[in-house]
């Protein structure tokens, strides 16, 4: 056909552009990898039994201070338990909660948000009202109430986080899906004869996915904090198993004699939550072809 031979060659320079991984992604990802390895292999890596008490080695300072014992890198608490080993075992709880609660929250919230934002109509009406009502409950009180009903334990903590935080995803994803739904490529899918559900999954979802990923990493950070808060007030798992929140609560009582019992779990918690949020930001940049 006459028109099939282009009279000029179009430049295609994008093929040569490369982009390197950002420092932000390296640092946050690196810290989380360290944490995951420490948590997974805690029984082999931890220098001591995290539950082993020894009053002769109580309140040992970290390794660089005078009076430190070799082998107790980050010192010991008032019962002589190794702080480093307890942080490593505590990471197991924190990461399990972050992973399971974060993912489940994202799945439930994003699904409802996507349906409300794309299908609109009565589905939106029902889901949006539910979100409004849900968000009127004070979250921490809601969590404590839930755990009081279900009894403390890992499962209760995870369920509490899911039940409280799905609204965060639902609201943000709904707004995003609405904005995407108004774009012409959705009309174009309709012109092509695409079914509504198919359009939602193949056209809208990929455009909302970066938002979901960022929220998911933020949510994992939040889940770690909520778990710490609940174990701080003794509503997480049983008290003798080490959790970061529990360690912070114990360290608080002896902060003047042994600051390291408080500071190290706190710093770990801080770095972890920060890493989760920075990981989200970094991943968003990577995922977005427009920013690439």
């Amino acid at each position, binding site marked *: 056909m006459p028109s099939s031979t282009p009279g000029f060659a179009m430049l295609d320079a994008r093929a040569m552009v490369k982009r390197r991984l950002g420092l932000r992604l390296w640092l946050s990802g690196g810290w989380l990898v360290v944490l995951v390895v420490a948590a997974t292999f805690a029984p082999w890596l931890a220098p001591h039994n995290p539950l082993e008490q020894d009053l002769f080695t109580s309140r040992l300072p970290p390794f660089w201070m005078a009076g430190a014992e070799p082998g107790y890198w980050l010192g010991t608490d008032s019962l002589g338990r190794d702080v480093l080993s307890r942080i490593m075992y505590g990471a197991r709880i924190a990461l399990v909660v972050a992973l399971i609660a974060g993912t489940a929250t994202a799945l439930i919230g994003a699904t409802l948000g996507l349906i409300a934002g794309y299908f609109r109509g009565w589905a939106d009406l029902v889901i949006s009202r539910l979100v409004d009502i849900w968000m009127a409950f004070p979250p921490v009180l809601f969590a404590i109430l839930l755990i009081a009903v279900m009894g403390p334990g890992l499962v209760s903590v995870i369920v509490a986080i899911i039940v409280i935080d799905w609204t965060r995803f639902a609201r943000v994803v709904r707004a995003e899906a609405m904005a995407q739904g108004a774009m012409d490529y959705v009309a174009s899918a309709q012109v*092509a004869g695409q079914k509504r559900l198919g359009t939602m999954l193949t056209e809208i979802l990929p455009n909302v996915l970066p938002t979901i990923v960022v929220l998911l990493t933020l949510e994992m950070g939040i889940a770690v904090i909520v778990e710490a808060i609940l174990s701080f007030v003794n509503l997480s798992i049983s008290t003798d198993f080490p959790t970061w929140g529990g360690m912070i609560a114990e360290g608080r009582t002896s902060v003047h004699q042994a600051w390291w019992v408080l500071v190290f779990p706190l710093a770990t918690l801080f770095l972890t939550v920060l890493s989760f949020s920075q990981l989200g930001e970094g991943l968003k940049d990577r995922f977005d072809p427009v920013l690439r």
Partner: protein
Amino acid sequence: MTDLYTVTDMHLSLADMVNKPLFGSAPRIDILHGLSFSIKRGEVLGIVGGSGSGKSTLGRVLVRLLEPSRGQVLFDGQDITHLNEDALRPLRRRFQMIFQDPMSSLNPRRTVGSIIAAPLKLHGFDRISVRVDQALDHVGLPRSFRTRYPHELSGGQRQRVGIARAIAMEPEFILADEIVSGLDVSSQAQVLKLLADLVADLGLTLAFISHDLSVIRRLCGTVMVLYQGRIVEHRASDALFAAPEAAYTRELLGAIPLPDPDQPWGAQAG
């Protein structure tokens, strides 16, 4: 020539969400007031009108993105006025649309290849990869663009992708809704040339919506002038440009800058 589209006394009203009361349903605003016309096979129809004249709305009715509230729309003898989405699906291949804003009409997360292939897959075409390549050839884009994302292309290239997606379906009718209004003048000329060639090569029927009469004049055999949801003039383009009948058409023609302002429209070269 047979009629591809026959539209009889078609009305369309949309919900007026601005004036929606707190409870109860929104009042309706009439956009189109009883349009009757037909589009012949192989015809290139220009639809012009000012902002809010209903030209895009009319186009969206033709490809059934909107449902008329009254009247009848026949496509190739088949009543598509109130067909639901399931019943429309087999027909959808036959009338395609090119959108005004190619940035918004191409999914930013999909590659050009996947954008062109998606409608083909839905309609069970064979040799999809070959057809995508052919479509890219048709619109004068390199085949390597299959792996590009829309934001990596220029405006004119994006609009070519939109055209490739439409013609890959081998439709009988294409609606082009203001497809050159977002492009610079040289891309406009190229895209218009391309469209004219495609219409001739593929034997397409085309409805070309524009507010730019000089574009319409170059491309279209017949012109329909819309004003506030009514047809004020619908004639062969030569006759219309030589002697506009309706006052509104004369107003539109008068608004176009001419190369030689002392000569009337009919006497202009080119």
